């Protein structure tokens, strides 16, 4: 089949000027912030020099509180601000196994997205997660959000000694 022979379209950077195209509609609140189980998820994107990445965009994909994707639930997008900060309002994913949120990071200087996972602290089921189990203690800590002022904080270090563990796409 001729159609089957077509090769994949290569990735290119999102560049510095995506905000007016991709972040003009708010997509960072996956649930009503007033909801009792609303979870504030926030963090910074930092480069290899520890400087904030002010022109990044992060996207998340996760199950809902019951562990599914009812009504198309589960996707969110947040640009970073001048201090490299992103923020979402969502819920902790439910279902079997360790809860986690998948995250993609796009930025000027990233020629293809980075993928990682956000796990939650103090979850006994984390011990049985196959990815966490295969990582070193430092790597595990890097993929686990930290409770901070009623929110969950998850920073992304693109490069260097504290680099976040990224998953091959």
């Amino acid at each position, binding site marked *: *089949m*001729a*159609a*089957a*022979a*077509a*090769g*994949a*379209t*290569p*990735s*290119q*950077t*999102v560049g*510095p*000027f*995506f905000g*007016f*195209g*991709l972040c*003009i*509609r708010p*997509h960072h609140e996956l649930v009503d912030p007033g909801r009792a189980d609303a979870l504030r998820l926030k963090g910074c994107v930092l*480069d*290899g*020099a520890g400087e904030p*990445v002010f*022109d990044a965009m992060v*996207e998340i*994909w996760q199950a809902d509180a019951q562990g599914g*994707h009812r009504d*198309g639930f*589960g*996707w969110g997008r947040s640009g970073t601000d001048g201090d490299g900060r992103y923020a979402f309002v969502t819920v902790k994913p439910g279902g079997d196994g360790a809860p986690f949120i*998948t995250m*993609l990071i*796009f*930025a000027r*200087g*990233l*020629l*293809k*997205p*980075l*993928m990682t996972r956000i796990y939650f602290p103090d979850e006994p089921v984390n011990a049985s997660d*196959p*990815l966490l*189990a*295969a*990582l*070193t203690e430092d790597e595990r800590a890097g993929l686990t959000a930290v409770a901070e002022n009623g929110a969950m904080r998850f920073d992304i270090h*693109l*490069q260097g000694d504290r*680099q*976040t*563990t*990224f*998953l*091959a*796409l």
Partner: protein
Amino acid sequence: MSRPAIERVGDGERASVHPLYLSPEYRSTRLRAPDRPLVLLPESMHDPTGPVYSDGPLAETDSDLTRQHDGEPLGERIIVTGTLRDASGRPVPGSLIEIWQANAAGRYIHQRDQHPAPLDPNFTGAGRVLTDADGRYRFTTVKPGAYPWRNHANAWRPAHIHLSVFGRAFTERLVTQMYFPGDPLFSADPIFNSVRDPAARDRLISQFDWETTTEEWALGFRFDIVVGGRDATPSEA
């Protein structure tokens, strides 16, 4: 206690059509490319689900960037169309494609683009469309201009339109740039040339298309998109 084994792979060790994270000639990659191996999730841990875009119905003006203001933008009116397919050649229907671009003078409306070229009060440069049942999409816009950037001395980006494609699984997300045929700036552009395989690089260049070109109205360009999924490799001849 020993940990279960998990495969780790250096970015450069994988066959892929995509650029490497570290492409030093594109200066911004130097402090942003990860320098540790990536974790390869075993097949059993892949998530086959992907976001369904739900933001209400799209407006017709979402896919016609020349009709978003009171007047018409300056520049060459163009129609960009193509088919979105997966790696096995199947059309991908109902997928959101978002685009953004500079105006005909090469200026983005973004506040951080301050180079001396005029903004166009009748052009924002952002649009979106859903692929139809056959995976097809179509935009009307104006041809973007080339513009300077500060990557190296006398650096200019070839004219391009940015596209963001959802695909069907979260791992099929694709953000890319569509270029125009015959651009003299290709050979000096580190972003275009970050794609190492020449055949794959050529797939970033749209084709002028008489069939889409509309008499007395607009030039047509064809840009087919293939979302390859994981470890997509260049097609073997």
